[in-house]
């Protein structure tokens, strides 16, 4: 944060992380803090866009996705597309490891599933070949929650490969097996129902997703498509890019299992920084 040159630096304090005053004390005088009580992504970003983004639409925007929640990232991109922003730089810092490996807890108290604001498609009444594509990370309870909501869809998982760190793929697969019964009749890594996409490359993720859907449509047209980003933030970005470039006005929605809280510290160290430039 300190090493980035910018006219203004804004930090969002999200209620899901439940930060105390003491934790924020060091930031108060340094940056412009935006504290929110609402859990609704549109209530956070719509006013913000009105006040800060639209008046500065000709300026450069860099958005650090590392600490944002997945639905915020998706909605942010959807709004950028909606209001006609040309270019945004997305920053992402990759962890060295997750604290408790495959047993790291991320989310707390699952509440409900709904579509991410602005990402609801108009769906077909024919549900005979509905697909749910899940970007699967370590948070397998959330994967299960989404799978249960869309019990009667064909389910496909995007697993991060290559993963951020060498051992993370194995950890991810270990978790994937735990949800096997809710997701597939049988899990096979070389099956057509698994997409292997780099954990830190949103563009390849978007491209592989697009290829998968085209291929599936050739076999038998997909009646409705649901996307759910639960893997790395880079893959979340990839899924959102695929949605805004290829799915708006189609029977495609991005859905998400919402929780009342998230763990603040889930990872250790920073191995690499990424800069993803998106031209809308």
């Amino acid at each position, binding site marked *: 944060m300190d090493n980035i040159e910018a006219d203004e630096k804004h930090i969002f304090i999200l209620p899901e992380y439940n930060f105390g005053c003491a934790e924020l004390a060091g930031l108060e005088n340094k940056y412009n803090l935006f504290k929110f009580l609402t859990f*609704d*992504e*549109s209530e956070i970003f*719509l006013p913000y866009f009105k006040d800060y983004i639209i008046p500065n639409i000709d300026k450069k925007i860099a958005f650090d996705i590392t600490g944002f929640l997945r639905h915020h990232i998706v*909605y942010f991109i*959807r*709004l950028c597309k*909606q209001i006609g922003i040309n270019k945004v730089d997305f920053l992402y810092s990759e962890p060295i490891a997750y604290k408790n490996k495959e047993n790291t807890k991320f989310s707390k*108290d*699952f509440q*409900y*599933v*709904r*579509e991410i*604001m*602005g*990402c*609801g*498609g*108009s*769906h077909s*009444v*024919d*549900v*005979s070949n*509905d697909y749910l594509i899940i970007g699967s990370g370590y948070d397998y*309870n959330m994967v*299960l929650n989404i799978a249960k*909501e*869309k*019990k*009667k*869809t064909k389910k496909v998982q995007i697993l991060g490969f290559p993963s951020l760190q060498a051992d993370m793929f194995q950890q991810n697969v270990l978790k994937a097996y735990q949800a096997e*019964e*809710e997701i597939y*009749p*049988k899990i096979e890594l070389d099956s057509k129902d698994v997409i292997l996409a780099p954990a830190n490359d949103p563009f390849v993720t978007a491209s592989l997703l697009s290829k998968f859907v085209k291929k599936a449509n050739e076999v038998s047209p997909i009646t*409705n498509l649901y996307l759910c980003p639960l893997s790395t933030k880079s893959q979340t970005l990839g899924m959102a890019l695929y949605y805004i470039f290829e799915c708006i006005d189609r029977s495609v*929605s991005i859905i998400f299992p919402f929780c009342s809280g998230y763990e603040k510290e889930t990872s250790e160290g920073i191995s690499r920084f990424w800069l993803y430039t998106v031209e809308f």
Partner: protein
Amino acid sequence: MNPFDVTKAVDYSDQELFYNWVDFPKHSFQNFIRPTLEMPMLIVGSKGSGKTHIMKHFSYSMQKIRSNNTFDNILKEGYIGVYLRCSGLNGYRFLGRNETEETWNSVFAYYLDLWLSQLFLDVIDNIFVINKGLQKLEGIVCEKVLNLFSTSKEKIIDIRGLIDFLKLQQKNIDHAINNISLSSKNLSQSVEILSNPGDLIFEIPNIITSTVPELTNIKILFLLDEYENFSSGQQKYFNTLIRERRNPVCFKIGARRYGLKTTETLSADEHIKAGSEYELFDLDNIFRENYVEYREFLRNISIKRIANSQIRISTDISKYFNQSNLDSDFEIIKGKRLHIDKFITKLKKYKVKNVNEIVKNVGCENVLIERLNIYIIYRSIKKGENLIEISSLLKECSQQYISGHNVKMYDVILDKFKQDLIDALYRENGLKLTSYCGFDNLVKISNGIPRHFLMIMKHIFRWNTFYENDFASNTVSTEIQLLAIKDTVLWFMEDANKTDENTNYRYSIESICNFLRELRFSDLPPECSISTFEIRNVDFNPGLKRIITFLEQYSYIIKEDYGRRDKNSNVRNDMYQINGLLACWWELSISRRGIVKLSSDKLENIFYYNRAEELKIMMAKELLKYNVPFRKENTVLELFD
């Protein structure tokens, strides 16, 4: 290939559903469901009870397959089934975003009408395609249907055009909802509701059956699956349609046990009543109350699936499953005799005199009788009897029994406690309990939920492959069956991870099972075959009621229909049996005989995770009553000097 890989109807295509269809023996699902019945029916069942498979069986796509795509054969069934999967409607989008509940409810009602009508017209379109003679009526149908809309004066001449028109109305709503969060434009500004609630659902079928002579007496059956996916407000609207049902429309609604969130309607918040306004069909109960047919049903499913996988087996499927082999297991136990060690330790700990002689007297070449003798000694300790005398008597009894004579005292105890004593022997000697194995026991364990059985079978085939065991030529070992049960339990427990308002359901399940297990394997269990508990007045305790309702709705505990009358107060108490899968995992009985009576206070200690300390104390006190030296806390037993 594993014939049981698919355990959910959703993973089957229509053709596969048809191919794998197995009817319920003797009664047939047709007789239960009665598709042409005018009274709406609510079909409830646990996850995996087969609701979707059954409901889809009555849908048009399956009607078409079984009638070889022949219009006349479909008509012979007397109805046309329109299947709706409620989750497909994405009911979650109709809330929040600063819109009032009233606005959402009216938009949802219109949306549902449009959605169901599209599904119905899709079926009609298909019928017009397979019976081209009817196509001349399309123009009249379209004209009449369009009159149901308040403003539209579209010119539509065929059913496909009508469906496109409805789709367009639906799309307008979808866009309006989406735009709330992109443009701050509210819903009432952008959605125009063009028909009265329910008109499309009741009147379009009416128009079709009155316009098309071949369909005059045909019922239009709407099959709504996954009703639990609708919110209370959304169900309230549909409940109103149930109350105001008009011919030729019939409804079958499928829901999980907890699926009906409200019985309220929009008519002055009145409730729809089971029996008079809708019929309640409990699939779990049907399976549980008709055990013989249920067993036959699972046998037929298994044989069909295995045969479809090109594995040749005999129709006597039970012979492919190993059961508990007491003779060989008793030989192992004889070699270990750890139950005797435990017995000696106990007697010595409580300073019983003449331990060696007592132990010698209870000894018997039949280990079950030996364990029974130990049980009788424990009972004598409790009664304060002379242990040397009793053990000498037992020595004689054992000899008589071994030489083939009846021993009444043994018969009385074995009649009730035989399985408990066998299981105790296994447990004390470090063996896994195999009394859950065998086809009949696996059926029993599934507690009327076919998917539980299918899951066990799926894992049996997996482990069979792992151990390179061929199902057709070898029997399935008890080890493999136990591994399969374990895998199924892990899946079953997944739903218990839910927590709400200071409740941890997983903890509650583990806690009640642990408690019952401790009782079952105490020295003198209070009841035989423990796995059932009884509770009174739970209705007056909202906290307990909430947990029990959850556990019952997810089938972690099975409510016994009639409960039991309290001897003193004549109040009927509620009785619950632990689910068979859990019973196996916690080494409880899968039969229901003895019933453990629990007060609300005790059950609160067991179920509430913030009362772990109280539970510890309560359990210690409780177990003192059933374990040597059988005393109340702080009392000195004179027998042991």
